[in-house]
């Protein structure tokens, strides 16, 4: 199965390790991964701030770049939700673009969605290198993709060496919201502090946050206010579990 990686600009710059983990997991489950280097940004910031014209410029670029891809997979869910929810609106009734846009939308998947819906992977048998308590933040794009928390949480629960600790108010936004975080700092701070507090209450080591933006926000608040847990992408956990299958043997 051929998969083109849609890395997204934030993951590219701030979380390259998530991108590498995504590649490793996809390859482990039998995909042939390519990375079209002409890709840039999906236009989400432009669209969400009321600049649909600018967003469309970037959307056209995305559609052109991934024209020949079979599947497109992204580790950053809000970008996938941007494509899924808003690209059809951007190209509505535009004869020249609409078909290409809808085709692009149909083959674009969020990472967890792709693993569970298309590849239907079974992670039983994989196990983390050490006992890890995991909690899960329901990032808002999950709502946009109509996924629910099930697919990701079920997968994590099946991983060996993990205990799952449910997060209070797991479906409450982390307060990122793109430019919202800098425009309405006070409100954003109150919301993200709430997330850190709830995260700390779980006593978990890791909070799964499958979106680069949310991870920057929650991570930044964890660092400022102190937290027992680290926000991580589920791809990173899966990659660790895959590495753990053949741990390096001690010499001698």
């Amino acid at each position, binding site marked *: 199965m051929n998969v083109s990686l849609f890395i997204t600009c934030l993951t*590219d710059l701030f979380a390259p390790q998530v991108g590498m983990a995504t590649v490793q997991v996809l390859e482990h489950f039998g995909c042939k*991964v390519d990375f079209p280097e002409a890709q840039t940004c999906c236009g989400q*910031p432009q669209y969400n701030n009321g600049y649909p014209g*600018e967003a469309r410029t970037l959307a056209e670029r995305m559609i052109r770049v991934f024209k020949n891809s079979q599947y497109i997979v992204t580790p950053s869910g809000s970008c996938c939700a941007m494509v899924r929810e808003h690209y059809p609106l951007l190209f509505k009734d535009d004869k020249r673009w609409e078909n290409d846009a809808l085709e692009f939308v149909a083959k674009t998947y969020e990472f967890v969605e792709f693993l569970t819906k298309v590849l239907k992977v079974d992670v039983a048998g994989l196990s983390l290198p050490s006992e890890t308590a995991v909690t899960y933040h329901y990032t808002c794009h999950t709502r946009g993709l109509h996924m629910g928390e099930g697919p990701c949480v079920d997968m994590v629960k099946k991983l060996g060496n993990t205990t799952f600790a449910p997060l209070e108010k797991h479906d409450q*936004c982390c307060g990122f919201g793109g430019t919202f975080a800098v425009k*309405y*700092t006070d409100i954003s701070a109150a*919301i993200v502090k709430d997330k850190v507090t709830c995260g700390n209450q779980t006593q978990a080591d890791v909070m799964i946050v499958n979106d680069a933006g949310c991870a920057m926000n929650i991570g930044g608040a964890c*660092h400022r206010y102190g937290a027992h847990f680290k926000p991580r992408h589920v791809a990173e956990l899966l990659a660790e579990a895959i590495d753990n299958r053949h741990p390096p043997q001690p010499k001698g």
Partner: protein
Amino acid sequence: MNSRMKAPTMSITESDVAPPANEPPNPNLLSDNDLKHPPHARGAALPIFNPDFKAHAHEAALDELLHDAHENSIVKNWYARARVLAADLPDADALRSLAGNLKAHTLDHLDFYLEQFADSVEKAGGHVHFASNAEEANQIVVDIARRTHSRLIVKSKSMVSEETELNRALLAADLIPIETDLGELIVQIAGDHPSHLVYPIVHMRAKQIGEVFAKFFNVPFTDDPNALAEMARVYLRNRFAEADLGVSGVNFACADTGSICICANEGNARMCTSRMRIHVAMMGMEKLIPRFTDLPVFLKLLARSAGGQPLTQYSNIITGPKRAGELDGPDEFHIVIMDNGRSRILASDYRDTLRCIRCGACLNACPIYRKVGGHTYGSIYPGPIGALITPLFNGLEHHEHLPQATTLCGACYEACPVKINIPEMLIAMKGDLKLVGKDPWYEKYVFRLWTIGLNGKLRYVLGQKLQRFAMRHFFKKSKDGWLTKLPGLAKGWTEVRDFPLPPKKNFRELWRERGLKNTT
């Protein structure tokens, strides 16, 4: 309708809660001074009581007491609601679609249904009044009160009457309005504003309510919810006995039968509508549904969405005045149908906002509302739906923060029982800011430049390198590699949290190093 305090179940006589003998409750204590109405600037269509969103948000975002009050009510309710929906309505999503489609259909043919409804009401013996704005609506109520020699007016909860500031108009006409919903009564005697569509006093703690009651009833302070509720109950019983005219809102108006449905939890709406000589129901013209038989669809959703109840305690269905031989019911039944800007909204791209049944679910779900509270929105319609309709009623130029103060998390859309796509409309409204000149002057240049910078591989790669270089070398950072102080537009970020330092290599550099074949 709902208050955070439960009314006591056992029956207590008035003497049980009578204040000390030397300070008897004064049945005539009602005066304009007692029944305050807070001052504010009059906007176009809605009363506006706090024009400075940002300043209010700053305070509210730090108000831990407010957050606690919300956690113990609306947030708790939110999860109760989720459980009730899952248990009782396994196909809630289909029901929401049906409700949304029914409302959309009604709005698409509102002229027809309004006429049908007016005919049906008159056939049932009621009187229909159309009001094009708030003043007209208030005047209609005042005129009815004067003609029927009514002075004491009991009101059940009605958001439309908040919209028209009916109480202010009645007081000005030397009439005495008494709010009979417990939460609204507290708001009224405190001279406050409701902060939620369904729970008007969700921002208050029992202690505050105790202080308000101690002063108003002239009794020793108590914050025991049962005692407070009992004081209100006794007080309201007497008002019900004295009043001539009852004003109510309308939850649903059935076009085919002329029936109105009022959903309430405290029994006060039934007192206001059945015991009075005159009943005046006020409604926005979007409250219509086509058929009486459509009512169950909405009743199934309303109370569940509002507070996780299967139904409100009372679902009052009223068709016309008392008929010959009936014991209960008013001699006169009036309906005031108000436009107040709704036909303008109907003709706009924001028609779907008129589907709203005022259940408050989007408020309860909203991370912003939970942290800033209803008063921050400055309008009687707060929360996500308020962020849309307040600018629609009053002009976006007066409320430029409302559509912007959103993370677009989508919780409101998911919660909405009639599937109003609030996030998508907030985005559209952000785009409208340019039309009213309320976008920051630099913003369009920022987005234009940003877009140009992203529309080309080389530009993008250089841009990423530049950002990384700047962040790694120019800005203040902690020892363990987090940026702690950023300038310019990013300043707000590091005021409240740290910013991650980009790693030395971005993904595409790592990808190349890995030596994998790529497609370009």
